[in-house]
Protein backbone atom coordinates (compact mmCIF):
# COMPACT_ATOMS: atom_id res chain seq x y z
CA UNK A 1 0.00 0.00 0.00
CA UNK A 2 2.80 2.34 0.99
CA UNK A 3 4.55 1.59 -2.31
CA UNK A 4 1.38 2.37 -4.20
CA UNK A 5 1.09 5.71 -2.45
CA UNK A 6 4.67 6.57 -3.27
CA UNK A 7 4.16 5.77 -6.94
CA UNK A 8 1.01 7.87 -6.97
CA UNK A 9 2.89 10.74 -5.36
CA UNK A 10 5.58 10.57 -8.06
CA UNK A 11 2.97 10.37 -10.81
CA UNK A 12 1.19 13.36 -9.26
CA UNK A 13 4.37 15.41 -9.32
CA UNK A 14 5.00 14.43 -12.94
CA UNK A 15 1.44 15.30 -13.86
CA UNK A 16 1.71 18.74 -12.26
CA UNK A 17 4.99 19.39 -14.07
CA UNK A 18 3.41 18.26 -17.35
CA UNK A 19 0.42 20.54 -16.86
CA UNK A 20 2.61 23.52 -16.00
CA UNK A 21 4.83 22.78 -18.99
CA UNK A 22 1.98 22.61 -21.40
CA UNK A 23 0.27 25.66 -19.91
CA UNK A 24 3.25 27.97 -20.02
CA UNK A 25 5.86 26.55 -22.38
CA UNK A 26 3.89 24.63 -24.96
CA UNK A 27 1.99 27.58 -26.46
CA UNK A 28 5.34 28.93 -27.62
CA UNK A 29 6.35 25.60 -29.09
CA UNK A 30 3.17 24.01 -30.30
CA UNK A 31 1.89 24.32 -33.81
CA UNK A 32 -0.65 26.96 -34.60
CA UNK A 33 -3.31 26.45 -37.19
CA UNK A 34 -2.06 27.03 -40.73
CA UNK A 35 -2.24 30.73 -41.68
CA UNK A 36 -5.45 31.57 -43.43
CA UNK A 37 -7.21 34.48 -45.11
CA UNK A 38 -7.96 37.52 -42.97
CA UNK A 39 -5.39 36.74 -40.31
CA UNK A 40 -2.11 38.47 -39.64
CA UNK A 41 1.08 36.55 -40.19
CA UNK A 42 2.69 35.05 -37.09
CA UNK A 43 5.93 36.81 -36.16
CA UNK A 44 8.72 35.35 -38.25
CA UNK A 45 12.27 36.63 -38.08
CA UNK A 46 14.41 36.04 -41.14
CA UNK A 47 18.02 37.02 -41.72
CA UNK A 48 18.54 40.01 -44.02
CA UNK A 49 20.17 38.47 -47.11
CA UNK A 50 23.88 39.11 -47.47
CA UNK A 51 23.57 38.98 -51.25
CA UNK A 52 23.11 42.64 -52.37
CA UNK A 53 20.82 41.65 -55.26
CA UNK A 54 18.44 39.82 -52.90
CA UNK A 55 18.70 42.59 -50.35
CA UNK A 56 17.81 45.13 -53.03
CA UNK A 57 14.95 42.96 -54.31
CA UNK A 58 13.38 42.97 -50.86
CA UNK A 59 14.14 46.66 -50.29
CA UNK A 60 16.05 45.94 -47.09
CA UNK A 61 19.26 47.39 -45.78
CA UNK A 62 21.81 46.63 -43.09
CA UNK A 63 22.32 43.33 -41.31
CA UNK A 64 20.44 41.30 -38.75
CA UNK A 65 16.88 40.14 -38.89
CA UNK A 66 13.74 41.36 -40.60
CA UNK A 67 10.06 40.55 -40.48
CA UNK A 68 8.12 39.76 -43.65
CA UNK A 69 5.88 42.88 -43.49
CA UNK A 70 9.07 44.99 -43.55
CA UNK A 71 9.68 43.93 -47.15
CA UNK A 72 9.26 46.96 -49.41
CA UNK A 73 6.22 45.81 -51.35
CA UNK A 74 2.45 45.91 -51.42
CA UNK A 75 2.18 42.13 -51.59
CA UNK A 76 4.51 39.33 -50.52
CA UNK A 77 4.10 35.75 -51.69
CA UNK A 78 5.64 33.23 -49.30
CA UNK A 79 6.22 29.69 -50.48
CA UNK A 80 6.89 27.18 -47.71
CA UNK A 81 8.88 24.52 -49.54
CA UNK A 82 11.38 21.75 -48.94
CA UNK A 83 14.26 20.49 -51.00
CA UNK A 84 12.95 17.03 -50.11
CA UNK A 85 9.40 17.61 -51.37
CA UNK A 86 8.54 16.15 -54.79
CA UNK A 87 5.70 18.60 -55.47
CA UNK A 88 7.93 21.57 -54.61
CA UNK A 89 10.50 20.21 -57.04
CA UNK A 90 7.84 19.79 -59.72
CA UNK A 91 6.42 23.29 -59.14
CA UNK A 92 9.82 25.04 -58.98
CA UNK A 93 9.97 26.02 -62.70
CA UNK A 94 6.40 27.35 -62.49
CA UNK A 95 7.20 29.52 -59.46
CA UNK A 96 10.25 30.86 -61.32
CA UNK A 97 7.92 31.71 -64.19
CA UNK A 98 5.65 33.53 -61.74
CA UNK A 99 8.67 35.55 -60.57
CA UNK A 100 9.56 36.46 -64.16
CA UNK A 101 5.96 37.38 -65.00
CA UNK A 102 6.00 39.84 -62.09
CA UNK A 103 9.48 41.20 -62.83
CA UNK A 104 8.65 41.73 -66.51
CA UNK A 105 5.54 43.76 -65.74
CA UNK A 106 6.51 47.34 -64.83
CA UNK A 107 3.11 47.92 -63.20
CA UNK A 108 3.57 45.25 -60.54
CA UNK A 109 7.33 44.73 -60.43
CA UNK A 110 7.87 46.93 -57.40
CA UNK A 111 4.64 45.89 -55.74
CA UNK A 112 4.90 42.08 -55.51
CA UNK A 113 7.82 40.12 -54.07
CA UNK A 114 8.33 36.38 -53.57
CA UNK A 115 10.31 34.57 -50.89
CA UNK A 116 10.69 30.89 -50.05
CA UNK A 117 11.13 29.29 -46.64
CA UNK A 118 12.68 25.81 -46.62
CA UNK A 119 10.90 23.84 -43.90
CA UNK A 120 13.47 21.71 -42.10
CA UNK A 121 16.10 22.64 -44.66
CA UNK A 122 19.61 23.68 -43.67
CA UNK A 123 21.23 26.60 -45.51
CA UNK A 124 23.19 24.02 -47.51
CA UNK A 125 20.00 22.20 -48.53
CA UNK A 126 18.33 25.49 -49.47
CA UNK A 127 21.42 26.26 -51.57
CA UNK A 128 21.11 22.90 -53.36
CA UNK A 129 17.45 23.62 -54.17
CA UNK A 130 18.27 27.14 -55.35
CA UNK A 131 21.05 25.90 -57.59
CA UNK A 132 19.14 22.87 -58.94
CA UNK A 133 16.12 24.92 -60.00
CA UNK A 134 17.94 28.21 -60.58
CA UNK A 135 15.54 29.97 -58.20
CA UNK A 136 15.82 33.73 -58.77
CA UNK A 137 14.10 34.96 -55.59
CA UNK A 138 15.41 34.81 -51.99
CA UNK A 139 15.14 31.50 -50.13
CA UNK A 140 15.60 31.09 -46.40
CA UNK A 141 16.47 28.00 -44.36
CA UNK A 142 14.52 26.73 -41.38
CA UNK A 143 16.71 23.87 -40.26
CA UNK A 144 15.04 23.27 -36.90
CA UNK A 145 11.47 23.68 -38.20
CA UNK A 146 11.09 26.78 -35.98
CA UNK A 147 9.23 28.81 -38.62
CA UNK A 148 7.41 25.72 -39.86
CA UNK A 149 5.96 25.19 -36.37
CA UNK A 150 4.82 28.81 -36.13
CA UNK A 151 3.14 28.36 -39.50
CA UNK A 152 1.08 25.44 -38.25
CA UNK A 153 3.32 22.65 -39.60
CA UNK A 154 1.80 22.93 -43.03
CA UNK A 155 2.53 20.32 -45.67
CA UNK A 156 4.63 21.57 -48.55
CA UNK A 157 4.41 23.44 -50.81
CA UNK A 158 2.21 25.96 -49.00
CA UNK A 159 1.57 29.41 -50.41
CA UNK A 160 0.71 32.49 -48.37
CA UNK A 161 -0.12 35.83 -49.96
CA UNK A 162 0.29 38.81 -47.63
CA UNK A 163 -1.00 42.29 -48.32
CA UNK A 164 1.03 45.06 -46.72
CA UNK A 165 -0.96 48.22 -46.09
CA UNK A 166 0.39 51.76 -46.33
CA UNK A 167 0.09 52.19 -42.56
CA UNK A 168 2.40 49.22 -41.96
CA UNK A 169 -0.31 46.75 -40.99
CA UNK A 170 -0.82 43.60 -43.01
CA UNK A 171 -3.14 40.67 -43.51
CA UNK A 172 -3.14 37.34 -45.25
CA UNK A 173 -5.34 37.63 -48.33
CA UNK A 174 -4.86 34.12 -49.69
CA UNK A 175 -3.31 30.81 -48.66
CA UNK A 176 -3.28 27.40 -50.28
CA UNK A 177 -1.76 23.98 -49.80
CA UNK A 178 -0.14 22.77 -53.00
CA UNK A 179 -2.19 22.83 -56.16
CA UNK A 180 -0.09 25.51 -57.85
CA UNK A 181 -2.23 26.52 -60.80
CA UNK A 182 0.62 27.81 -62.97
CA UNK A 183 2.19 31.26 -63.13
CA UNK A 184 -0.60 33.18 -64.85
CA UNK A 185 -3.63 31.81 -62.96
CA UNK A 186 -1.78 32.11 -59.66
CA UNK A 187 -0.77 35.70 -60.41
CA UNK A 188 -4.40 36.44 -61.19
CA UNK A 189 -5.38 35.13 -57.73
CA UNK A 190 -2.66 37.25 -56.13
CA UNK A 191 -3.77 40.40 -57.96
CA UNK A 192 -7.46 39.88 -57.20
CA UNK A 193 -7.11 38.81 -53.59
CA UNK A 194 -4.78 41.69 -52.77
CA UNK A 195 -6.84 44.30 -54.55
CA UNK A 196 -4.03 45.24 -56.91
CA UNK A 197 -6.44 44.56 -59.73
Amino acid at each position, binding site marked *: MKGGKAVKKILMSLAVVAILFFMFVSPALAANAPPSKGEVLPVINLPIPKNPVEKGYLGLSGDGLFKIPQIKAKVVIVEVFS*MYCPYCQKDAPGINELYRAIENDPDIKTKIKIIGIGAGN*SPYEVGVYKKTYDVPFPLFGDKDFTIHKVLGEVRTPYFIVIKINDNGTHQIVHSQLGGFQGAEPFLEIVLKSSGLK
Partner: protein
Amino acid sequence: MDKKRLANLILIIGVLSVFIFISMAYGLSDAFKENIYKVGTLKPIDSKLKVKVGQRAPDFTLPAVSGENVSLNQYRGKKNVVLSFVPAAWTPVCSDQWPGYNIVKDIFEQNDAILFGITVDNIPTLFAWTNQMGKLWFPVLSDFWPHGAMAKKYGVLRSKGVTERVLFVIDKKGIIRYIDVHDINKRPPLEDLVNALEKLRK
Protein backbone atom coordinates in the same frame (compact mmCIF):
# COMPACT_ATOMS: atom_id res chain seq x y z
CA MET B 1 -12.72 13.08 -0.63
CA ASP B 2 -12.80 16.21 -2.80
CA LYS B 3 -9.06 16.54 -2.43
CA LYS B 4 -8.65 12.98 -3.70
CA ARG B 5 -10.92 13.68 -6.68
CA LEU B 6 -8.96 16.81 -7.50
CA ALA B 7 -5.72 14.85 -7.27
CA ASN B 8 -7.05 12.21 -9.65
CA LEU B 9 -8.26 14.89 -12.04
CA ILE B 10 -4.84 16.55 -12.08
CA LEU B 11 -3.27 13.16 -12.68
CA ILE B 12 -5.54 12.39 -15.63
CA ILE B 13 -5.15 15.84 -17.20
CA GLY B 14 -1.41 15.70 -16.74
CA VAL B 15 -1.05 12.37 -18.46
CA LEU B 16 -3.50 13.25 -21.24
CA SER B 17 -1.80 16.57 -21.91
CA VAL B 18 1.35 14.74 -22.94
CA PHE B 19 -0.58 12.95 -25.66
CA ILE B 20 -2.73 15.86 -26.71
CA PHE B 21 -0.07 18.49 -27.10
CA ILE B 22 2.87 16.58 -28.49
CA SER B 23 3.23 17.66 -32.09
CA MET B 24 5.73 16.62 -34.68
CA ALA B 25 7.33 18.85 -37.21
CA TYR B 26 7.96 16.84 -40.33
CA GLY B 27 7.58 19.37 -43.10
CA LEU B 28 5.95 16.64 -45.07
CA SER B 29 5.38 17.00 -48.78
CA ASP B 30 1.84 17.27 -50.08
CA ALA B 31 2.85 14.64 -52.66
CA PHE B 32 1.86 11.94 -50.17
CA LYS B 33 -1.50 13.60 -49.32
CA GLU B 34 -3.13 11.92 -46.31
CA ASN B 35 -1.42 8.57 -46.88
CA ILE B 36 1.37 8.94 -44.37
CA TYR B 37 1.00 6.97 -41.17
CA LYS B 38 1.95 9.01 -38.12
CA VAL B 39 4.31 7.03 -35.93
CA GLY B 40 4.86 9.61 -33.19
CA THR B 41 8.23 10.08 -31.55
CA LEU B 42 10.28 6.90 -31.36
CA LYS B 43 13.34 5.90 -29.36
CA PRO B 44 16.12 7.65 -31.31
CA ILE B 45 18.29 4.53 -31.73
CA ASP B 46 17.20 0.98 -30.93
CA SER B 47 19.91 -1.38 -32.18
CA LYS B 48 23.60 -2.07 -31.78
CA LEU B 49 25.92 -1.68 -34.75
CA LYS B 50 27.77 -4.83 -35.79
CA VAL B 51 30.10 -3.05 -38.20
CA LYS B 52 32.44 -0.12 -37.82
CA VAL B 53 34.35 2.41 -39.88
CA GLY B 54 37.53 0.90 -41.34
CA GLN B 55 36.01 -2.58 -41.56
CA ARG B 56 35.11 -4.41 -44.77
CA ALA B 57 31.37 -4.06 -45.43
CA PRO B 58 29.55 -7.40 -45.27
CA ASP B 59 28.41 -8.41 -48.73
CA PHE B 60 24.72 -8.68 -49.54
CA THR B 61 22.42 -9.45 -52.43
CA LEU B 62 18.96 -7.88 -52.37
CA PRO B 63 16.12 -7.59 -54.88
CA ALA B 64 15.50 -4.13 -56.33
CA VAL B 65 12.10 -2.64 -57.14
CA SER B 66 13.20 -2.68 -60.80
CA GLY B 67 13.28 -6.49 -60.66
CA GLU B 68 17.01 -7.19 -60.67
CA ASN B 69 19.17 -8.46 -57.82
CA VAL B 70 21.88 -6.14 -56.56
CA SER B 71 25.06 -7.28 -54.80
CA LEU B 72 27.54 -5.04 -53.05
CA ASN B 73 30.39 -7.03 -54.62
CA GLN B 74 29.35 -5.86 -58.08
CA TYR B 75 30.67 -2.41 -57.26
CA ARG B 76 34.01 -3.42 -55.75
CA GLY B 77 36.74 -1.48 -57.54
CA LYS B 78 34.15 0.44 -59.59
CA LYS B 79 32.07 2.78 -57.44
CA ASN B 80 31.80 4.16 -53.96
CA VAL B 81 28.53 2.96 -52.48
CA VAL B 82 26.11 4.82 -50.23
CA LEU B 83 23.52 2.75 -48.39
CA SER B 84 20.54 4.74 -47.15
CA PHE B 85 18.39 2.66 -44.84
CA VAL B 86 15.11 4.29 -43.90
CA PRO B 87 12.81 2.72 -41.30
CA ALA B 88 9.61 2.15 -43.23
CA ALA B 89 7.58 3.11 -46.28
CA TRP B 90 4.64 5.50 -45.82
CA THR B 91 6.02 7.07 -42.65
CA PRO B 92 6.72 10.78 -42.15
CA VAL B 93 10.45 11.45 -42.19
CA CYS B 94 11.31 8.55 -44.54
CA SER B 95 8.94 9.84 -47.21
CA ASP B 96 10.86 13.10 -47.32
CA GLN B 97 14.40 11.80 -47.47
CA TRP B 98 14.98 10.04 -50.79
CA PRO B 99 13.19 12.71 -52.88
CA GLY B 100 15.96 15.05 -51.73
CA TYR B 101 18.65 12.62 -52.87
CA ASN B 102 16.78 12.39 -56.13
CA ILE B 103 17.76 15.96 -57.09
CA VAL B 104 21.46 15.61 -56.21
CA LYS B 105 22.49 12.84 -58.61
CA ASP B 106 25.29 15.18 -59.72
CA ILE B 107 26.81 15.24 -56.23
CA PHE B 108 26.92 11.43 -56.16
CA GLU B 109 28.39 11.34 -59.66
CA GLN B 110 31.05 13.92 -58.82
CA ASN B 111 32.12 11.63 -56.00
CA ASP B 112 31.96 8.52 -58.15
CA ALA B 113 29.27 7.08 -55.92
CA ILE B 114 26.11 5.06 -56.38
CA LEU B 115 23.23 5.26 -53.91
CA PHE B 116 21.02 2.41 -52.74
CA GLY B 117 17.84 3.08 -50.81
CA ILE B 118 16.92 0.15 -48.56
CA THR B 119 14.00 -0.70 -46.31
CA VAL B 120 12.57 -3.92 -44.88
CA ASP B 121 9.30 -3.41 -46.79
CA ASN B 122 8.32 -5.76 -49.57
CA ILE B 123 8.71 -4.89 -53.25
CA PRO B 124 5.05 -4.00 -54.02
CA THR B 125 4.94 -1.60 -51.07
CA LEU B 126 8.22 0.01 -52.11
CA PHE B 127 6.95 0.23 -55.69
CA ALA B 128 3.78 2.10 -54.67
CA TRP B 129 5.56 4.34 -52.17
CA THR B 130 8.52 5.37 -54.33
CA ASN B 131 6.17 6.09 -57.25
CA GLN B 132 4.88 9.03 -55.18
CA MET B 133 8.41 10.46 -55.14
CA GLY B 134 8.69 10.80 -58.91
CA LYS B 135 11.18 8.77 -60.90
CA LEU B 136 14.13 7.91 -58.67
CA TRP B 137 17.53 7.68 -60.34
CA PHE B 138 18.91 5.23 -57.77
CA PRO B 139 17.94 1.61 -57.05
CA VAL B 140 15.63 0.87 -54.15
CA LEU B 141 16.29 -2.49 -52.50
CA SER B 142 14.04 -4.64 -50.35
CA ASP B 143 15.42 -6.37 -47.25
CA PHE B 144 12.03 -7.93 -46.64
CA TRP B 145 12.77 -11.65 -46.59
CA PRO B 146 14.31 -13.20 -44.59
CA HIS B 147 13.00 -10.21 -42.73
CA GLY B 148 15.70 -7.55 -42.26
CA ALA B 149 18.50 -10.13 -42.64
CA MET B 150 20.90 -7.63 -44.19
CA ALA B 151 20.02 -4.92 -41.66
CA LYS B 152 20.62 -7.47 -38.92
CA LYS B 153 24.02 -8.29 -40.38
CA TYR B 154 24.97 -4.61 -40.17
CA GLY B 155 23.36 -4.23 -36.73
CA VAL B 156 20.72 -1.68 -37.72
CA LEU B 157 17.52 -3.71 -37.28
CA ARG B 158 15.43 -2.26 -34.47
CA SER B 159 13.56 -4.35 -31.94
CA LYS B 160 10.22 -3.80 -33.69
CA GLY B 161 11.39 -5.05 -37.08
CA VAL B 162 12.11 -1.77 -38.88
CA THR B 163 15.59 -0.42 -39.47
CA GLU B 164 17.38 2.60 -38.15
CA ARG B 165 17.61 5.72 -40.27
CA VAL B 166 21.22 5.14 -41.20
CA LEU B 167 23.73 6.06 -43.87
CA PHE B 168 26.78 3.96 -44.72
CA VAL B 169 29.49 5.13 -47.11
CA ILE B 170 31.55 2.27 -48.51
CA ASP B 171 34.58 2.99 -50.67
CA LYS B 172 35.64 1.19 -53.85
CA LYS B 173 37.72 -1.26 -51.84
CA GLY B 174 34.61 -2.29 -49.96
CA ILE B 175 35.71 -0.59 -46.74
CA ILE B 176 33.16 1.27 -44.60
CA ARG B 177 34.29 4.88 -44.42
CA TYR B 178 31.32 6.61 -42.77
CA ILE B 179 28.38 5.58 -40.61
CA ASP B 180 25.58 7.86 -39.44
CA VAL B 181 23.03 6.01 -37.35
CA HIS B 182 20.76 9.00 -37.12
CA ASP B 183 18.00 9.76 -34.65
CA ILE B 184 15.11 7.90 -36.32
CA ASN B 185 12.86 10.93 -35.79
CA LYS B 186 15.06 13.30 -37.79
CA ARG B 187 16.37 13.56 -41.31
CA PRO B 188 20.16 13.60 -41.63
CA PRO B 189 21.36 16.93 -43.07
CA LEU B 190 22.54 16.45 -46.64
CA GLU B 191 25.79 18.31 -46.03
CA ASP B 192 27.02 15.63 -43.59
CA LEU B 193 26.73 12.95 -46.26
CA VAL B 194 28.30 15.19 -48.92
CA ASN B 195 31.24 15.92 -46.60
CA ALA B 196 31.73 12.19 -46.04
CA LEU B 197 31.70 11.57 -49.81
CA GLU B 198 34.15 14.37 -50.47
CA LYS B 199 36.52 12.95 -47.86
CA LEU B 200 36.82 9.79 -49.97
CA ARG B 201 38.74 11.80 -52.54
CA LYS B 202 41.34 12.99 -50.05
